């Protein structure tokens, strides 16, 4: 009750980073699996990836200073998209999906480097 309320931009940055870190690695795995194995990723692998990335992102939800390396998500998404494009047979709809994924990853990286997120974490710092 003592901490000041975060500003909307700060909360928005934290939300973007949390959701991005929680969800995008799973989609990158789906892309990479299809590219390398030539078959859709099995659901247990998807579930395991989601559990790991959500678990690793959860501290941010509670204001703990745990943000992944800002470049990690774009690197993951970019590598997965490149693998998928190299494997061939990408339809226009899938190309749009890959582009959306890359844009989202870039947006999350920007949010992770933003002053708004830094301020948010400063405000949540105990003491």
């Amino acid at each position: 009750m003592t901490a000041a309320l975060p500003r909307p931009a700060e909360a928005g940055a934290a939300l973007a980073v949390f959701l991005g870190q929680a969800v995008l690695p799973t989609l990158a795995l789906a892309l990479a699996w299809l590219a390398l194995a030539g078959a859709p990723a099995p659901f247990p692998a998807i579930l395991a990836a989601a559990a790991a990335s959500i678990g690793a992102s959860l501290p941010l939800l509670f204001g703990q200073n745990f943000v992944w390396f800002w470049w990690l998500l774009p690197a993951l998404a970019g590598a997965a998209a490149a693998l998928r494009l190299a494997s061939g047979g990408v339809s226009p709809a899938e190309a749009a999906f890959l582009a959306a994924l890359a844009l989202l990853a870039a947006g999350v990286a920007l949010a992770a480097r933003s002053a708004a997120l830094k301020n948010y974490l400063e405000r949540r710092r105990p003491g």
Partner: protein
Amino acid sequence: MSATTGAAAGVRHAQASAGVSAHDRAQLVQAVDRHPELRGAAVVFCQAGGCEQLRAAAVYGPKRIVVFELNPAPPSPVPTAVPPARKSKLGWELFQMGLNCGGTALAAVGTIFFSAAAAPTGGVAGVAAVASGAATVAGAAQCAASGYRVYNEVTDQGATNDNLDASPAYQNTMLALDVVGLAGAGAATRGASRFAGTLAKAGASRGGVIAGQTLSRPMRKAITAGLGGSGRYTSIALSARARQELLAVIGAGLSLTGSATGGASRELVVYVAEAL
């Protein structure tokens, strides 16, 4: 089946009738006997998994047997080989993803936005707070799964999604996530209901508190006591709490809609009824 051309003519005649009449029986046997090499051979007629001996082999000479097998009617020559194309469910999968991810975002932003400053109401404290946190995690997992399904829909026209829908392991996993999410939704609505009741008892307007209205000291003291706290919460803290509860209820509404349209509520009826 070993049969000569002449015997085949007899078979063709036999196919015209459902059973083997005495006339057909005689025709078949005669067709066999027209060929010197087969004369006196045993004749068996098979149809629909059953066989009938039309004639036993002669007791002398070489033991031969001629079996006639009547197969089911050949498939219709009308071209029906190409099944109708599966209707794309991309719109539906995107809709589900919007519900799942939207509900998760609202629940998450509620925690992010106000938890630092919110008054401890007791409504979402303890077990209920754990349920709400678990609901956020379950929602994020469902959001990721929805993204995976959307990707499947654009890459293989939903064949993988159809397999997933037929898989008991997948169904049970999503059911478990739904139940956790619904428990969180219930906790959110219960917490909001309790908070709204406390505000009403203290004579405070819920809309005013959400809008940031400054409350009098007696009101704040009454609300604090009603929430099980000590001392007197600030108006800012109470306003933050009210906004958090509002967001949680909106998120719970999305979570329930997602379950009702594509999840546990189809198989498992869960009622969450709270008077706000």
